[in-house]
Every structure is written in structure tokens, then in C-alpha cells.
């Protein structure tokens, strides 16, 4: 079953901005956790 064109074009469709927001959120979260890990070194 070849997926219908409408499913894959445009690549991420109208949800592109939402997906991008989730990626940015993940990067910020990892950076915050890295800061959390390092912040208690005396």
C-alpha cells in the first residue's frame, strides 16, 4: 500500500509549527536538566 500523496506532502503538513515547538521545548528541557546537573558542583 503506497501511502496517499496527501499524507506526506507537504512534509509535516500544517502541524509543522507545532512539531517545531516541541523540538525547541525538548532542547530547552535538556539544557535546563544539564544546568540542573552542573549547578550543585561546589
Amino acid at each position, binding site marked *: *500500500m*503506497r*501511502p*496517499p500523496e496527501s*499524507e*506526506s506532502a507537504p512534509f*509535516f*503538513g500544517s*502541524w509543522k509549527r*507545532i*512539531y517545531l515547538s*516541541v*523540538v525547541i*521545548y*525538548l532542547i530547552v*528541557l*535538556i539544557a535546563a*536538566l*544539564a544546568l*540542573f*546537573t552542573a*549547578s*550543585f*558542583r*561546589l
Partner: protein
Amino acid sequence: MRILDWVVLVLTIGSIVFYGLWKSRKTSTVAGYLLADRSLPWYAVALSIMATQASAITFISTTGQAYADGMRFIQFYFGLPIAMILVSAFFAPRFRNANVFTAYEYLEKRFDAKTRALVSLIFLIQRGLACGMVLYAPAVVLTVILGWNDQLTTILMGGIVILYTVLGGIRAVTWTDFQQMLIMLVGLFTAIFIAVQQLPEGIGFADALLLAASAGKLNAVTTNFDWYDRYNLFSGVIGGTFLALAYFGCDQSQVQRYLTGKDLQQSRVSLLFNAVAKIPMQFFILLTGAMVFVFYIFTAPPVTFHSGNLKNVAGTAIEQKHNDAVAARQRAAMELLKNRDAAHQESFLASQKHMDAVHKEATSGFNDTNYVFLTFVTQHLPAGFVGLVIAVIFGAAMSTSSGEINSLATVTMVDFYQRFVRRESSDNHYLWFSRLATVFWGIYAIASAQLARGLGSLVEAVNMLGSLFYGGLLGVFLLAFFFPRVGGTAAFIGVLAGEAAIFYTHSTGKVGFLWYNVIGCGVVVLTGVLLSTFWQSASSSHPPESGDLQPPPAQTR
């Protein structure tokens, strides 16, 4: 447990089960029983996805893991948001458009019946075994608290799950999941609040964080790369993405959750809710374990957290060594809080390492991490809260195992019985068989729970078991979606090659299990693509195996 705890426990579990059954009282068709007529709102689906993943093991074992190994386990979830985006963009729309009941049904439409049967069988084996472990975790609870027989506990837990899953189908499962997840969140924040409250006078939350960090328990991000290291930034982002993609994209216990959404948008929102909420939730669960660690700096911990082993060390030299190590660590902690400098941080860490060595000697290598959190809960939480936390653990076990049993029954019915045994029959007959399959898998889960004994950290055991099979599953779905020239036979051989590669890698013991998913998936895709390319060029006189839509034989529903 006190009477108030029993009241809270029985009322919580009883009302959750009753609510689930009440919400599913109108279920009378197979589509209603297996997919809730695709009518559920996003918030119910979102919390059901979360509850199915967050088992009792999550609360029992993850907190214990933070106590013993620190918070680095959180990196395991770094790939989850990326996977959720990919599932939302590529998997969910394809499954919904194909109008399938199971993910594996899609494989027959795309490839052929043998590929569908093979992948369905892999799912049944893998998920069936994991389901047993999920039921065993609460048995650990009652063994510690009440000295109940763990076999009896798994039978009791499994019995309740079978009851509401058989009667209400996926509607009952989803709505009980919804309630259970809410209770879990309440219980989680209660536990962390009380752990901090129980610290000695003058020791605040910031002090607790300093002590936990100084002992290496707040290592949320570790950047040292090592193939065998299970949890670091790289294995978490790369291996974790593959594992989460396989779990949410190819495991019917999760696919079935988002197929119940009212429409594609509701399914996508429920997935992205998990993408956003999962890491913070795991952070707080692990932080609870770290706070329990700090609590036991000032309140002497037992020599071993497994109460059954305590009598073996009572009055021995090792008990004295343990008491001395506890006192030395407490002194080092107080000195650190007083001076707050690198030298005292080092000496506190040294006292912790000595404590770890004594603990290892006392337990003779037995991994007692699963007992840490429950010992804390039962011995130090006030009346009522103990019942609540136990209800959370029971609810978590029930939500996960009911979802798994429901999906196992669905695959048995749709991918085997309806496909290969009885192609055409009435809706009533299939509904009846679905219920029978649910009973069967419930009993199977109870029986296989016995295999979970002696596996050490249960959460790692479950994830490792998944990683032995998920690479193969993910690979075949990637072939289906993105390699239209690959046909059924190439995909079938690809799955077998991928599984062989994973088991070989596992046997060498040289690679951390999160990488199995990457290796397995890569081998499946590579084998599938190479074989189809070879066959196409070798037999140009024959039409190539096509990736075009192959409608399966008609099935009635």
C-alpha cells in the same frame, strides 16, 4: 497498613473500576469493544497513553533506581518527544486512513499475510512476557508490606484486570486509565512533598538537593559516550528515539490507544501531550527517589531494603559496619551543609561510596532497589497516604496490564482468528471471541508473572525485553512507509535478519540495550532494500514485487 489506608486503597481501586465499567456499559459491538467506535476525546486518549506506559514498575523501580544510581535514567526519555512527532506525522495518519484495527493489519495491506503474521507473532510473544512483569511488580509491594504470597497477589490483581477488561473492552480500559493517571499524579506529588517534609528540622529543599547532587544522585545529563553505558545523552536521544518510535508506532498496546480518538487531530494532540508531559513527569518520579535518598541520610536505612533478608544480617558484623557507615555519612553530610565547599563535597561522596560498598556486602549482590520506595512509604508516611500510594501503584499496574491484555486479545482476534481461522462470522461471534481471548491473555499474564522473579531492576528488565523485539518491528514499518519498492518477501526476511542481529548483539554483552533498537531496525531496512533491489535486477522478466496497495482478502466485522 492501618484501617484508614485499607479504606483509601479499597475505595480508590473500587471506584476506578466501577467508573470504567459504567462508562463502557453500552459496548455491544466488536468496533466498540476494540476501538471504542473511534469516539474518545483527546484528553482521555492522552492520559490512557501515559497510564499504559507508566506501570507500577515506574513508581517502584524508577524511584529505587534514582536512590541507587541517580537521575540519569531520565535520559532514556529524551528521544520520546522526537518519536511522538514522527508517530503523529507518519504513523497515526496511515493507520487511520487504512481504517485498520491493528498496526499489523496494515502490513498485510502493504506487504502480505506472512509478514503480518510474523510481526503479530513477535508482538504476542514480547508483549505477553512483559505483561507478566507488569503484574509481578505490585506483588513485590504486598510481599514486603503484608507478607502475602506473591503468586496469590498476581492472581488477585490479574483477576480484577480481567474482570473489567473482559466486560468493558477498550472503553473501560481507557476510562480506568484516565482515572488511574489522575490518581498517580496526585500520589506522586504527595510522595515528593512528604519526603521533603520528613527531613530533619533545619534541612530545607535546597540543602536536600545539594546533598543528593553531592552523592551523584542528580546526574540528569551525562555526556560521556560509552556503547555499554545504558543511560547517557547519546543513547537517550538516539536509542531512546528508536525505542519510543517502536513502542508508540508499532506496539499495538499503544497504537490501539490513539486509534480510539474521534479523529486524526484528537489522536495527534493526545500524542503531543505525552511528548510534552512525559519528561517532567519522569523528572518528578526520579526526584522523589533522590529525596528518599536524602531522607535516609538522616534516618538510618535498614541494612537491606528486602525485609526477608534482614534476619540474615541481624546482630552480625556487617550490621555494625552498616551502622558505622550510616553515622559517618551523616557526619559528612552535616559538615558539607555547614561548610559548603568542594573538599567537604568530596569527603561526603567518599562516605557515600563506602556506604555503597557496605550495602553491596550486606545484600551479597542482591539488587534491592525495587524495595526502597515501598519501605519508605510503609514505614514513614502518615495513615491514609500509605493507602493512597499503594492505590497509585496498584492503579498503575492495572492500567498497564489491562491495556496490554486488551491489545493482545485484539491482535489474537483480528490478526489470527479473523484472518486465518474464521473469515466470515457474525459481529456477536467476534465479540464473544474477543472476550475469550482477553480471559486467555489475562491468565497467561498471571502465569508468566512468575518469570519476573529475580530479574533485578524490573524497569530495566521490561525495557530490555522490549528492545529485543522492537528493532525488528520498527524496521518493517519504516520499510512499509518509506520504501515503496520493497515487497512482502524482502520485508519478511528483513525482519528475521533484524531479530537475528539483535539476539547476536545481546549475546555478545558488549552493547547497551538501547542500541538494539537502532541495530535491529537498521538491519531490517538494509536487508529489505538490498533484497528487493537484487530481485528486481535479477528477474527483470518478472514484474517486481510492488509496494502498491494490496487489499487483503475481505473480512467481515
